[in-house]
């Protein structure tokens, strides 16, 4: 470090220093970093237990220096339920993609939210199955081309993309729902604020928090990282508008 300089943008202490397996431009690395920053700044690493899914973030425990469990595909909400109930003094987060949380794990997600489990859901919605090579997800946009919707998602066959945040915001057990993205530096900062707010709500034990992060998949979308940011702005956000959907006291 050169004398007189200070590092202001750096790896959070709890983000393990290793080479990530994520593709260039993927938001997973960004969200991992933001989450670890929040845990470090709130000084709650020792009190946090995470659950990671099946999907690209299946290896999240290789990067996050917190106690973690890797759940079966779609079952993170059930795994997190048990951890939270047995360790009510801990912060429990469940980090899941759209195939995991909104397709195969819909029942577990819905019921954990409806029970108001003290879990912070971090829902990475990139509209595609990244790890298996770019298949159609429940959140794939109408007309979007994937390997299993090669002619574009047809709502007649596949229905419209699921709006999970709107669905779970209808449950009394859910305290806080916000949809964010990391497609701009400003939005990434809002994502961090949302994660921090969710952790603070968890401390109050007033219900489930659900943070949906509109995310990209340059490899699966078959575009460059920069093009993926344009797609988020022009296609995803109009259908999945960002902002607070539900918060305590409102």
């Amino acid at each position: 470090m050169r004398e007189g300089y200070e590092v202001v943008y750096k790896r959070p202490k709890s983000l393990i220093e290793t080479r990530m397996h994520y593709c260039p431009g993927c938001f997973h690395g960004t969200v991992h970093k933001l989450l670890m920053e929040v845990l470090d700044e709130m000084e709650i690493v020792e009190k946090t237990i995470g659950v990671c899914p099946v999907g690209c973030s299946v290896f999240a425990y290789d990067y996050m220096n917190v106690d973690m469990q890797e759940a079966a595909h779609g079952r993170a909400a059930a795994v997190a339920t048990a951890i939270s109930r047995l360790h009510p003094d801990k912060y429990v987060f469940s980090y899941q993609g759209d195939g995991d949380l909104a397709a195969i794990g819909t029942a577990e997600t819905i019921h954990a939210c409806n029970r108001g489990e003290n879990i912070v859901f971090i829902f990475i919605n990139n509209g595609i199955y990244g790890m298996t090579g770019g298949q159609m997800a429940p959140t794939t946009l109408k007309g979007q081309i994937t390997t299993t919707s090669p002619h574009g998602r047809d709502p007649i066959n596949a229905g419209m993309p699921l709006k999970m945040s709107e669905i779970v915001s209808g449950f009394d057990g859910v305290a806080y729902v916000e949809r964010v993205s990391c497609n701009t530096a400003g939005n990434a900062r809002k994502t961090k604020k949302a994660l921090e707010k969710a952790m603070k709500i968890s401390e109050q034990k007033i219900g489930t928090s659900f943070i949906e992060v509109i995310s990209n998949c340059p490899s699966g979308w078959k575009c460059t990282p920069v093009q993926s940011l344009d797609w988020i702005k022009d296609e995803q956000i109009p259908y999945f508008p960002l902002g607070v959907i539900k918060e305590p006291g409102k």
Partner: protein
Amino acid sequence: MGEIRFMKGNEALAEAAIRAGMQGYFGYPITPQSEIVEYLAMQEPNHDYVLVHAESEVASINMLYGGAGAGSRVMTTTSSPGFSLMQEGVSYIACAELPCVIANISRGGPGLGTIQASQGDYFQAVKGGGHGDYNLIVLAPNSVQEMVDHTIMAFELADKYNTPALILTDGAIGQMMEKVVLPEPIEYKPNKPWATTGKTKDRERNYITSLYIKSEDMEQKNFKLQAKYKEIKENEVRFESYKIDDAEIIIVSYGVSSRTSKKVVDLAREKGIKVGLLRPITLWPFPTEEIARLSKLDSTKFFLSVEMSVGQMVEDVKLNVEGRKPVYMYGRTGGIMMTPEEILEYAVKKYEEG
């Protein structure tokens, strides 16, 4: 001397779990095991355990994974179709080496089947059940008292080997009422330094996973699991013998069928036919050496597997008899309880055929 009560098998299992220091229960109603979740729900305010009435057996087995991984003594219970639903989760738990207890109060199948007692889940229980190479410790109680004893034993064995333990019994044992002696409650103190309880400063993070994406790592994991299973096979085989020493006919039977079979032994001996009973208490590990030993005795004429299925355990009997003696099977399905007389008639017929 413990407390004496007159209890249903399912309630006895539930009460034993409480006394074993169970910290978390995750379950879903299904006949004929619903009394377990009902009993635990009723008793919950009097104890410290967590109870979640899950949305499905898929959820409850994954709650079991989460709870066991977080270091707690946890249990789920179900009956046959529910146990089928759990198999993916059971495979994950076995691979992640998480100690926990599962009970299958089995009923007749396949399909939605019948709610009456059955032993048609033997293969599923002892051959793994889910995907991949794994085994469960499988205990087979045949009385309400053993529902208590085996529940406590299941928790102990699960913790000893960091592996899921399964109580496999049938709707008859689950539903019948008998006298039981309940032990004093155990004050259970978990000692699981590998559990995800929050990373303290003095240790590295703990993580629970069943993912070994490199082939070499997965093979090493399988070697580790197999070494553990070998140790369990060497140390944990349990069985009961009844009038076996001079027996010409060896009945092999477990669970509710073993009670009927015991009566067959007595009826046969009244007729002067020497029948004995070998009752596996652990279905896995199976009493392989004892069956092999009996098959080498000159006095043994044949084996008869008695089970409420079309013949599942009989395959394991044959594997260990290794062709030294004939092995027959008598069974009924659909929840039909066999009478001692019909089993005896079959045994005598085979005996007279020589």
